[in-house]
Each structure stands twice: as C-alpha cells, then as structure tokens.
C-alpha cells in the first residue's frame, strides 16, 4: 500500500502540475480539495482520467469522485480494491 500511495502522489503531482509540491508534502489524510492541495473541479476531472488511464477504473458516476478523492489514503484504498491494471 505504501508503494501505491507514493506512486499515486507522484502521478497526481505530475498530472495536476503541482510544481512546487513534493510527495512528502502531501498528507495522506488531508483533503485533496478545498483546504488541502486547493484543487478545483478541472483537477477532479483530471483525477478521473488518471484513474482510468493508469488503473483501468472507469467512474460511471462522476459524483462518486467526491467520496473517492477525499484524501490520498481513501483514493489509494479505492484503487487497490477496484483496479484492473
């Protein structure tokens, strides 16, 4: 799980162009949206694309993203349980 969390953080930093942020700066339990990393709705769409492209997870209901993208820990847990690649 630790390996997946680190990989996920690196992927998020790259795909969302979080230029000045390092994986260790991202708290595993901190909210990704709002306070935390201050991500916006376009970032949420990019995360949906990332899940499909890198892990084969197609979110049928984008509204589910709100729960899945709650934190890195929640997202990594969801990926581990649902990934197809």
């Amino acid at each position, binding site marked *: 799980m630790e390996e997946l969390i680190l990989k996920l953080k690196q992927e998020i930093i790259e795909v*969302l*162009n979080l230029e*000045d942020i390092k994986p260790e700066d991202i708290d595993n339990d901190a909210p990704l949206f709002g306070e935390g990393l201050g991500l916006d709705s*376009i970032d949420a769409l*990019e995360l949906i694309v990332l899940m499909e492209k890198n892990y084969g997870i197609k979110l049928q209901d984008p509204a589910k993203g709100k729960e899945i993208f709650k934190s890195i820990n929640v997202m990594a847990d969801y990926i581990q349980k649902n990934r197809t690649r």
Partner: protein
Amino acid sequence: MERRGLEYVVLNQGNAQLTELYRSQIGDWPKFFKMDTLSKAGFVATELLLKKLGERRCGSEEFIQSRAIVLFGSTASLCADRNYQETIQNKDDYYPSPALFVYTLPNIVTGEIAIRNHWRGESSFYVLVAPDAAQMAFHLACAFQDSVTESILAGWVDSRNNDDFQVFMTLIRKEDAADTDWLAGQLQLIINDLNK
C-alpha cells in the same frame, strides 16, 4: 507640454523566461503552472506591468467594474488546441485531458488575468493577422464608448508553440484613446520593440 508615452512590458524569450519571472517576481499564484503558454505569457506580462505602474491589486468596486481587458493575437489558442489534440489523437490511447481542453479558447487568458485582479469590466480577444497599431487603436477606442470603461489592459499575446511566444502588455486610459492617432503611434513603438 509633451504627452508621456505608454508604459509597457515586452516578453518574447521562451517558456523558461516565464517560469523564471514567475518564481522571481510573482510566486503567489500556483495556478500559473497549470496554464497554457498563452495564458502564462499574458499573466506574467500583466503582473510585471502592474508592478511597473505601482498599481494596487484591489481597488474600489467602481474601479474593478471600469477596468477592461482587450487583447490581440494571431494564432489564438492554436498552441493549446494542438496540445489537446495529442490527447485524442490515438484511439487506443484516448484520454482527453480536461485541463488542456479548458485552454482551447483564446479568451481564457483574459479570464485568468481578470480572476487574478478581480477586474469585472469588459474583456475581448481579437484575432489579427499581425500586430496592427491602427486597427488595435481603433478597437481600443471603441471599447471606451460604453459608460463604464475608464481604463483598458491592452496587449498582443501570441503563442505559436509551447516555447515560442510574443507578448506586450500596456495600460490605456480613457484620455489616451481620445486621440487615436497618438494611441496608434504609441502602439507602433511598442510593436517595434516587440519585433526586435
């Protein structure tokens, strides 16, 4: 008394220059890194111009309603269009990027600048074949014809690819646009500098 010329900023040294300027002169707007080259160029040039003019970021409600943005360019959002196209080119690797898609309109750069500065005046992006001082002066003078606009952030912003752009940014006040010949002459001087 001789009239004072327009203050302006010209940038045309590639993407590395934009990032370096952002880090050394701005640094408090992480969204910069998500922007396409057109928006980055417009954003950085505006920030540097406002610094040069010593203008405060937030003014009164009346001020933010009276500040318009009128930009010009020749390739519009072609650079962002190409970047987005790459994400949908291959049907076996078809993952359209929302973050790239949002920049596939040239007027997004005006929005980025307006959001940063809380300006709520008119905004437009005109596509011209090449920088044309007389045509630009004409459109700027027209933009002052409403009852609200008192000043316009105006400029040329053009990005042919991710590392090749040209931008100038200047501030036009209502009195500057009253004499369109003078304004066109000033814009021509800036265009000459841009093309150096």
